[in-house]
């Protein structure tokens, strides 16, 4: 009975959060079309989210691509399938590893910071002060973050995938002796525009997930120092898990759409 109660309350909590995030999304979309964009805040978010995350995603992409190329070549080389290493690395980086790893790093670096910032503002009554000054918190705080990450994320994903492919190429050709022309020729031959599109569409989708979940946790935090910490942790954990789960379904859906 106790187990059932826990199960029911867990699911109802999840549904409640999903509903609240949906309404937050609707509010953000309404605010985007209804009010003027605050360019200063939007550009500030692009700098904070996009430009300052470049180092993190660059390292993530580079070493993921390098180790992935090395492991692929170790196995494929044994069966004389070195020709497949380049395309496998490129397609994996563009379609899956680039967007997902980039999203995970951004949810850790940016999502938790967003939640901590908003929850601190809530605890110190700054959000109430905004409302008292007749300023809509969604328009002032959420929209610039939402659009900032939406614009930045495709570039960050491109950076992650690009450096992964580049370092995979360098490891395979310089360290593992694969012929550079052969490697590159096969990579270009088996990689298409739809692989790039798939990664970039995922980037937009993951950006929305990270901002909405992180802002939701920040705005709904408990009014204590502990609440701020919990909000930051939950933002990172929930957005990462949602990215991973949704990626599975998204990949299936995108394959169906792009295959047709």
């Amino acid at each position, binding site marked *: 009975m106790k187990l059932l109660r826990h199960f029911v309350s867990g699911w109802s909590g999840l549904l409640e959060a999903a509903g609240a995030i949906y309404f937050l999304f609707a509010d953000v979309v309404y605010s985007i079309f209804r009010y003027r964009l605050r360019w200063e805040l939007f550009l500030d978010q692009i700098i904070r989210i996009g430009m300052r995350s470049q180092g993190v995603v660059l390292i993530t992409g580079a070493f993921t691509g390098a180790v992935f190329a090395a492991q692929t070549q170790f196995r494929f080389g044994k069966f004389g399938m070195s020709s497949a290493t380049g395309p496998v690395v490129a397609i994996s980086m563009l379609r899956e590893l680039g967007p997902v790893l980039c999203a995970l790093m951004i949810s850790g670096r940016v999502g938790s910071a967003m939640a901590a910032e908003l929850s601190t503002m809530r605890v*110190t*009554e700054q959000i109430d002060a905004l*409302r*008292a*000054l*007749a300023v*809509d918190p969604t328009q002032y705080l959420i929209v610039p973050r939402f659009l900032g990450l939406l614009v930045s994320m495709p570039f960050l994903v491109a950076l992650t995938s690009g450096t992964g492919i580049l370092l995979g190429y360098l490891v395979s050709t310089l360290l593992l002796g694969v012929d550079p022309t052969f490697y590159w020729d096969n990579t270009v031959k088996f990689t298409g525009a739809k692989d790039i599109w798939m990664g970039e569409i995922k980037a937009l989708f993951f950006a929305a997930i990270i901002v909405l979940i992180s802002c939701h946790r920040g705005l709904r935090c408990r009014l204590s120092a502990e609440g701020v910490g919990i909000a930051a942790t939950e933002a990172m954990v929930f957005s990462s898990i949602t990215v991973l789960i949704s990626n599975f379904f998204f990949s299936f859906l995108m394959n169906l759409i792009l295959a047709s």
Partner: protein
Amino acid sequence: MVLRLVEVTKTLGTQQVLEGVNLEVAPKERLCVVGRSGAGKSVLLRLILGLIKPDSGEIWYGETNLVPLRDRELAPLRREMGMVFQNGALFDFMNVEDNVAFALRERRRPESEIREKVSRILERLFLKGHEKKMPAELSGGMRKRVALARAIISRPKLIFYDEPTAGLDPIGSTEITDLIRCLNEEFGATTIVVTHDMRSVEQIAQQVAFLHAGRIYHAGCAEEFLSSEDPVVKAFVHGLIEEPTVGAG
């Protein structure tokens, strides 16, 4: 009446904080809402500003009932109000100047006008020379004065102060109460101060509303309240602790 509360109730968690509050505030009046800690004074201000919704009752601002209005519908009315939060609630990512200028920038006033008004108000509130400081670098009293400047810069018709003297030394406290009184006389804005500090009540109030057991227990002029012989009011005003019942415990 500029503001009228009719049978307002509010429950927070399991506790019924307000159990049918009725209150009327006349234009340009200085009203102090007093009561013990946890009596629901700050909740009352938040209800009037629409930051939280009552469980039942009506809150009339002029001819408009604020209760059914949503945040976006409340925005034009909130532009006529100013609020000084207990801890200032200054935007910690902005310096003093930008905090004070915030309301005017939101209303897209010309930058020259904003600079002139900010400079004037900072001088008036003894904050000249602190324009570029961040909120974290300010003392408690300065933070309150910045919050005050931010609330009054757009000349609201109705100003709320939530415990304006809490946490201040006696001199800082007198400075703030003097400012509240002077600003009310200067700008003619209706002023509602939530406090449990009797010195502030003496210095500021024209009218007093005493919140007790979820209701307005006493409402009247300040002198009448301070000299009241009602045992509950008297106990609050003079800080008397009720004698324990014989044989209790």
